[in-house]
């Protein structure tokens, strides 16, 4: 493993938040270590195949867009490689001390018993392992062997051993081709256990059990003898009786611990003295055993302790900042009353289990089958809010993600079922048998409020209803039962018309709520961090990722209840907080500021003028290669080619000695390209980088061809099919050789970057972004179209939680004023913007007074742009707004409350109408802030007039996350809530002095008439993104006029055009605190680009061969990133190397290869195709 002991940041948790934060910092050229207690990365997302709205994955879109060559370019579920990131799995943070900028941390690594550096994932061990265990990855729905892959798709994918299930038969160690399994009994013999008991029979049986397990057991009959023995024979573990004649076990514990603080002690006790044992644990005992016990109680405990003590080792590291990205846990439905029979009825599953059921890597390979009998599912229901929004279950919060997850799962079910019927119709041709297959699946979602609170969510839900016929029943289900004969699940519920009905289902999915992740509590102790009442890490009011302890930040769900895009945003915000600490530390230590990257780039030999000299090193893997293909024949074939200087066969390239031999062989030649034919390429990524530095050959002129796949597969086949595998090996080798021969040896260009930024809009998001940028050392131009910065905070009064927004604004303004690197331009707008990422040239127009004379125009240069133009309350004419003075909007009420213009009389009877013109076409989205605002204002009005009668007319209360608490509180505080059906909205009549609101109350199905002193309309939010600005910037707006992000989940802040980012309410409606968080996150996205004065362009960036180019501009149309432009005199096509992602779309449309993707040019591709057909022995194949 990596021996590095200092990192800029430690990220705990390798889920998406951890990955996002780590990548962000890595791209700022910070060294990051990620640890995760799971044996694989990816967190919860590695178990989910599909995310809405695309209903696919898309996680890879998180990968860096610039400096891509530093990291891996493949599916993120497989793994993550980045020059600046080290990843340690099966490891936990176990200790923390020091201060921000200089934390000493301890990392506790758990052994997996398989050397990850040597395991090539061939899977031979799995075939011989005799033991079977339930599979955690598939939520226990399937099984795996005792030696297994924790995640099926991760790469490198080292096997791990579940020691609890392992019988140490040694079969895996014997068959392992690389000797990666470390399961030797010899290692256990070095683990010494001292057994102290006055009863000989106990000593004897323990000695026998422990010795049989391979441990070294020592015996002592009394405490005194034990202490003597410990002097001569240091032991790692002591098992001691409590009741002994002379020295008691407790006394022995004290004595032994005094002398040997690291000794691990387990108390053995009769039932009567359990309390003593528990007491003993407080004074240093690790655990206790109740006598009498059997080996199957003792041995697992000893093995667990053995793993912890002996095999695990703590790494001590110094880090400057700590990011907690430990993700989320889930409510366990069987824990409390288990009203849904989870674990009792076989077809009741949690939503996470259901994700595994429909996953192609899941237990059913994506089949929609019942768990009890494997029959196809015809009727399925989702029950929402299981373990959330439930005070009886300690969950006075909304889990935020389950509504959309359930809708997605229902849509996927429908899609899968449609596929099932399609398969059934073609099954005759393929010979698959499908019993009772049908495309019809009935899907019902039982919900309380449909919380479609995000951008595009409402349309997704509408689409589920209209396109996919997903049924929604607004009713909380109290419990369910199972029919005896068919084992169908019966759900009783309250239908829309108020009648009580029952329905039968094949499967019921429980949408279990989020809970803090397991390790949250222990981490809070280690890091001395407070937790919220719900048990998540507490964060500061206007900084959603900053914990009260400086230097420690929380990313994503660790700070509670986030969906994917929010997690990704908050992770970037967390990266900013951490980045700031690192930056401050860097400045204070006067470390050389990171200049260009070439100071770090190792100097590789320039081979661009040399003829191709290719070295091929082939791993023989013992005799496995020669069993499949004749090495001599390979040598013979390749020696024909004058460009191949040498072909060497090396045994076990994966071992240290094999690798050294290979390196020697290469250095003995004058090779300038190296092909290694061995196992999976990803296993070698880091090794190749290191080898490249020693050999002075650029890593992209070295490659690994996976020839062992067919070799291993051949081993299991009949000899007569061997030639086919041999052909595959040969073809793979040829392909690899051809590609390398054609590889472009020129060094990448450096692209200059203007390290300044432009922030458009000085609302809270824009100001926060500007501050974050300036704090990181970048000059910022902050432009604002109005006379004063502050945006909506100029009129907003308080947050839902009661914090003063005016104070927050004032503090922010003060910081802006004090920050010399920020230049604020008020009454200014952007009128022109040219250039591309890294180098923008903008023109701003400053117009202090109305009238053209005073207009000033200035030019600005910058490398990145942050759009923070915000949004405002939507105007409306509905519900007599504008015709009756007592009908006002939420904003008007907020201003009047702030200015204390509301009298108690005016607050006598207040009707609040939510979702005015919202969540229906044409503004079919939820504005997210109005429901909490209504709660907040209701409380303010009640403060003003305790007798106030407040009626809130709503469609679905969107109090997601912890704002649910305030909903509960408002209910308790006598605020009246009445749902209304959007098809029969309330009416407001303005003919009288006091407006009269009428509606049909849906529960009682009776008309209600309220004569109101005040009618408050929640009209929601519309974006401020003028068409002209979008055009000038070259960015898109979404259906509703908001900033169109590159990808709603994975790149929520980026424009499709690289170098332009957005934050705040121009993205989508959000609260002030959330807007500030997005400001920090957007700053992070920009700093990736700005952190160096020049960025080396990536190797896989398309280039134009101008001498061949006919300027047909088809490549400009084809480029999905807008990276191509025609130069000003229309003579050349230009490629912005920071924006180009190397997809090759341009090359495919170019008829004569004037546009090429180096490494994958037409010449290389055609040669590769050719190589596939090369045959080793033409007459014998």
């Amino acid at each position, binding site marked *: 493993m990596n021996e590095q002991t200092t990192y800029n940041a430690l990220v705990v948790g390798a889920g998406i938040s951890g990955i996002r934060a780590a990548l962000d910092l890595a791209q700022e050229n910070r060294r990051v270590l990620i640890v995760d207690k799971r044996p694989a990365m990816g967190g919860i997302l590695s178990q989910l195949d599909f995310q809405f709205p695309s209903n*696919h994955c*898309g996680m890879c879109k998180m990968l860096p867009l610039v400096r891509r060559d530093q990291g891996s370019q493949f599916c993120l*579920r*497989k793994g993550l490689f980045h020059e600046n990131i080290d990843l340690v799995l099966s490891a936990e943070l176990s200790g923390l001390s020091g201060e921000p900028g200089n934390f000493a941390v301890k990392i506790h690594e758990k052994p997996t018993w398989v050397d990850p550096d040597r395991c090539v994932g061939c899977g031979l061990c799995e075939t011989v392992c005799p033991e079977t265990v339930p599979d955690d990855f598939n939520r226990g729905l399937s099984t795996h062997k005792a030696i297994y892959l924790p995640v099926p798709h991760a790469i490198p994918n080292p096997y791990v051993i579940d020691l609890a299930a392992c019988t140490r038969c040694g079969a895996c160690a014997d068959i392992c081709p690389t000797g990666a399994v470390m399961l030797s009994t010899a290692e256990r013999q070095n683990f010494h256990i001292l057994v102290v008991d006055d009863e000989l029979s106990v000593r004897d049986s323990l000695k026998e059990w422990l010795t049989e397990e391979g441990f070294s057991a020592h015996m002592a009959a009394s405490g005194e003898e034990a202490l003597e023995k410990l002097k001569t024979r240091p032991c790692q573990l002591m098992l001691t009786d409590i009741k002994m004649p002379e020295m008691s076990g407790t006394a022995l514990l004290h004595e032994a611990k005094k002398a040997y603080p690291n000794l691990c002690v387990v108390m053995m006790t009769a039932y009567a003295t359990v309390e003593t044992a528990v007491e003993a644990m407080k004074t240093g005992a690790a655990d206790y055993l109740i006598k009498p016990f059997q080996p199957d109680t003792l041995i697992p405990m000893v093995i667990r302790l053995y793993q912890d003590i002996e095999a695990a080792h703590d790494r001590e590291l110094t880090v400057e900042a700590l990011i907690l990205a430990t993700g989320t846990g889930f409510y366990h439905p069987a824990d409390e009353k288990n009203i849904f029979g989870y674990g009792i009825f076989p077809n009741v599953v949690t939503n996470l289990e259901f994700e595994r059921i429909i996953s192609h890597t899941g237990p059913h390979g994506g089949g929609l089958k019942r768990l009890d009998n494997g029959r196809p599912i015809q009727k399925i229901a989702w029950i929402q809010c299981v373990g959330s929004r439930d005070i009886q279950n300690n969950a006075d919060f909304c889990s935020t993600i389950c509504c959309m997850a359930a809708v997605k799962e229902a849509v996927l079910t429908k899609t899968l079922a449609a596929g099932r019927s399609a398969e059934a119709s073609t099954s005759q041709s*393929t010979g698959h048998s499908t019993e009772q297959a049908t495309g019809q699946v009935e899907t019902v979602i039982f919900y309380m409020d449909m919380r479609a609170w995000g951008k595009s969510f409402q349309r997704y839900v509408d689409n589920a209803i209209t396109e996919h016929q997903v049924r929604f029943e607004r009713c909380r289900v109290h419990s369910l039962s199972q029919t005896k004969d068919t084992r169908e699940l019966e759900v009783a519920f309250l239908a829309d018309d108020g009648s009580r009905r029952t329905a039968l289902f094949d499967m019921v999915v429980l949408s279990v709520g989020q809970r803090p992740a397991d390790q949250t509590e222990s981490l809070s102790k280690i890091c001395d961090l407070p937790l919220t009442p719900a048990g998540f890490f507490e964060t500061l009011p206007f900084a959603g990722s900053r914990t009260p302890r400086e230097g420690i930040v929380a990313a994503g769900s660790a700070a509670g209840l986030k969906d994917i895009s929010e997690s990704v945003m908050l992770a970037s915000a967390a990266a900013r907080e951490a980045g700031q600490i690192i930056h401050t530390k860097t400045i204070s230590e006067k470390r050389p500021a990171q200049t260009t990257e070439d100071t770090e780039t190792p100097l590789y030999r320039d081979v661009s003028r040399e003829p191709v000299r290719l070295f091929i090193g082939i791993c023989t893997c013992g005799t496995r290669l020669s069993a499949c293909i004749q090495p001599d024949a390979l040598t013979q074939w390749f020696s024909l080619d004058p460009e191949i200087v040498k072909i060497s066969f090396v045994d076990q390239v994966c071992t240290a000695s094999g690798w050294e031999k290979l390196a020697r062989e290469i250095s003995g030649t004058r090779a300038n390209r190296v092909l290694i034919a061995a196992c999976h390429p990803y296993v070698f990524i880091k090794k190749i980088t290191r080898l490249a530095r020693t050999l002075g050959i650029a890593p992209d002129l070295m490659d690994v061809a996976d020839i062992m796949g067919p070799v291993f597969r051949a081993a299991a086949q009949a000899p007569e099919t061997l030639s086919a595998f041999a052909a595959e090996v040969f073809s793979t080798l040829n392909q690899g050789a051809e590609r390398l021969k054609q590889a472009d040896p020129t060094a990448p260009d450096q692209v200059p970057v203007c390290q300044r930024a432009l922030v458009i809009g000085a609302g809270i998001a824009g100001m926060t972004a500007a501050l974050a940028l300036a704090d990181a050392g970048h000059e910022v131009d902050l432009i604002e179209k109005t006379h004063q910065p502050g945006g909506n905070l100029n009129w907003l009064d308080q947050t839902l939680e009661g914090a003063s927004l005016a104070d927050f604004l004032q503090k922010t303004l003060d910081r802006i004023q004090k920050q010399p690197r920020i230049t604020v331009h008020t009454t200014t707008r952007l009128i022109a913007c040219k250039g591309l990422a890294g180098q923008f040239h903008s023109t701003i127009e400053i117009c202090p007074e109305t009238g053209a004379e005073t207009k000033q125009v200035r030019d600005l240069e910058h490398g990145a742009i942050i759009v923070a133009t915000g949004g405002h309350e939507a105007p409306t004419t509905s519900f007599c707004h504008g015709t009756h003075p007592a009908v006002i909007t939420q904003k008007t009420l907020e201003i009047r409350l702030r200015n204390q213009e509301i009298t108690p009389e005016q607050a006598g009877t207040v009707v609040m109408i939510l979702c005015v013109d919202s969540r229906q076409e044409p503004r079919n989205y939820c504005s997210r802030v109005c429901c909490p605002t209504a709660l907040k204002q209701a409380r303010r009005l009640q403060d003003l007039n305790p007798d106030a009668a407040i009626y809130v007319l709503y469609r679905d209360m969107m109090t997601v996350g912890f704002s649910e608490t305030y909903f509960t509180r408002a209910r308790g505080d006598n605020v009246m809530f009445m749902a209304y059906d959007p098809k029969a909205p309330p009416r407001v009549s303005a003919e009288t002095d006091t407006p009269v609101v009428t509606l049909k109350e849906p529960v009682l199905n009776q008309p209600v008439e309220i004569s109101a002193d005040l009618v408050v309309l929640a009209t929601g939010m519309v974006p401020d993104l003028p068409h002209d600005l979008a055009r000038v910037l070259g960015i898109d707006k979404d259906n509703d006029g908001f900033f169109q992000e590159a990808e709603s989940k994975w790149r929520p802040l980026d424009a499709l055009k690289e170098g332009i980012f957005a934050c705040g309410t121009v993205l989508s409606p959000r609260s002030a605190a959330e807007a500030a968080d997005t400001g920090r996150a957007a700053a992070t996205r920009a700093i990736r680009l700005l952190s160096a004065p020049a960025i080396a362009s990536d190797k896989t960036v398309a280039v134009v061969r101008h001498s061949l180019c006919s300027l047909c501009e088809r490549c400009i149309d084809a480029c999905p990133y807008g990276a191509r432009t025609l130069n000003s005199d229309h003579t050349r096509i230009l490629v912005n190397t920071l924006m180009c992602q190397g997809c090759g*779309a341009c090359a495919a449309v170019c008829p004569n290869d004037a546009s090429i993707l180096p490494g994958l040019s037409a010449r290389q591709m055609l040669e590769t*195709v050719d190589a*596939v057909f090369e045959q080793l022995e033409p007459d014998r194949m």
Partner: protein
Amino acid sequence: MTQAHHPLIIAFVCNWCTYTAADLAGTSRLAYPENIRLIRVMCTGMVDPQYIIKAFLEGADMVLVSGCHPGDCHYINGNYKARRRIKLLKEILPRIGIEKERLKLTWIGASDGIQFSKTMQELVVQAKKLGPNPVNTQSVR
């Protein structure tokens, strides 16, 4: 037609989705036939019709282009562009007497290891049914 026809299938697979699925099929030890040659490309949108023509002219019995599902392309829309090119080729290939059924386009997502394996097996079945590619490789090169 021929007694022991081992069809050779060339598959242009996208780096992000289908290649990952192939990897997954490999690590999950799902059987897929040995007569498949994978050529990894960054995106199906970069597969020039020339590559496919070349594969057929060199004697491929079938060519598969496989990438991300619609809406899931790592490069936003490369798979849609690929679909148009495949459509084009399916019109052109019959001109030279190569059945359009020999060219296939599929979407196989990163987690669809099983789908990948099934697809490959099915392709071999179909390739056997179609018989050898009628191209005489001597005359075309």
